């Protein structure tokens, strides 16, 4: 295992992301009921949830490509 690759970060963010997706599908019925309500602050739920998932899963996918060895070239790109 290469030491400079973020294996621990990949594991932690992957766990958080998987946990959130498990919650979504274990409580699917309750989630769908709450997330389609249009009273009070309920319409904020889809927006906030999408943001939370983007942070957790976004971190995981970033570390995933890093661990796979697919990293950006230095500089501003463009070959």
């Amino acid at each position, binding site marked *: 295992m290469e030491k400079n690759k973020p294996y621990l970060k990949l594991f932690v963010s992957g766990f958080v992301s998987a946990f959130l*997706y498990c919650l979504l599908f274990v409580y699917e019925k309750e989630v769908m009921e709450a997330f*389609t309500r249009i009273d009070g602050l309920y319409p904020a739920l889809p927006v906030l949830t*999408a*943001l939370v998932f983007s942070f957790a899963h*976004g971190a995981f996918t970033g570390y995933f490509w890093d661990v796979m060895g697919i990293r*950006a070239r230095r500089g501003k*790109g*463009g070959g």
Partner: protein
Amino acid sequence: MEQVAIQFVDLTLPNVVFLLLVGFIGGLVSGFIGSGGAFVLTPAMMSIGVSGVIAVASNICHKFPKALVGAYKRYKFGHVDIKLGLVMAVSAAVGVWIGADIQQHIKLSYGEAGSGLYVSSAFVIVLSIVGGFVLRDALIIYRSGNMHAEEQTSRLARWVQSIEIPGTMIHFKTANVRISVLFTVPLGLATGILAATIAVGGFIGVPGMMYVLGVSGLVASATELVIAFVMGLGGTIKYALHGLVDIRLALILLAGSLFGVQLGAIGTTFVKPYVIKVVMAAIMLIVAVSRALVIPVYLAQLGKMSLSVKTMALLKDVSFLFMIAALLTGALIIVGAMIRGHRESVPEPEPQQPALK
């Protein structure tokens, strides 16, 4: 927007896998050219039984977090001009509002088929002209053999940059241009109107930033992600207020698309700048063909020509296949260019020195 009787689909494993894959490819294209994917994701969801309005709402709810992650990634590479993105986004938001109003008016006057004809015609006209122009530019760069050179600023952009209108001038640091906000406003409006019409404002926004404002392809495609984030957030709030977002669909798409958007963003640092233009042109022109195929269907529904039910169904199926082909073509060019770029960046191994005895 009227409240509708909401029917949410039951998700099966094949449907989930299908959405993950489409999400991944859509994300890959978005991370690379700043937009794209939305035109396939909505019909893809509808193909598994999701109603049109729920598909649009769920797609837009997945779009803004995807754009956020893509924009953040490309910001780290120095590609994003946040100020330009926000200035464009403000007028694009107004454009979405105008575009939605036009859509509503056409739907009320000419019905569902009239609305479909308007959307498809907009696709064909805009994408053929802009896609053709972008392809021509990419070919000129390719034939010049100078693919690593800084992109040439178009004559129109040079003129736009030369106009000084006191009190309206803004310097966009990353894009490295100083232009009057009076030029960004119509561009943002057009981006928003197109986004409300064909779901992909970037097909105007990115070429507009490149050829009208004189921004490089790398910065334009990355800055488009900021615009997509703002428009996507606004759209999600609008649909959530009507309880139309299927959060499961949005998050499944997001699960695939975040892998894609990160890979697409990384890809921009591997390829020659003109490849962004090639991908964009290829997708735009194939999508134009796809939408041209369904125009006779809408004309038949409006009673302007006659077609059998079987022919109409066939044209719709072939059109959908062309849409998928557009996305796959874009993804293949990106992956191919990344592999070539990666090979070119890996230094040749040093020849082994013969061991001294």
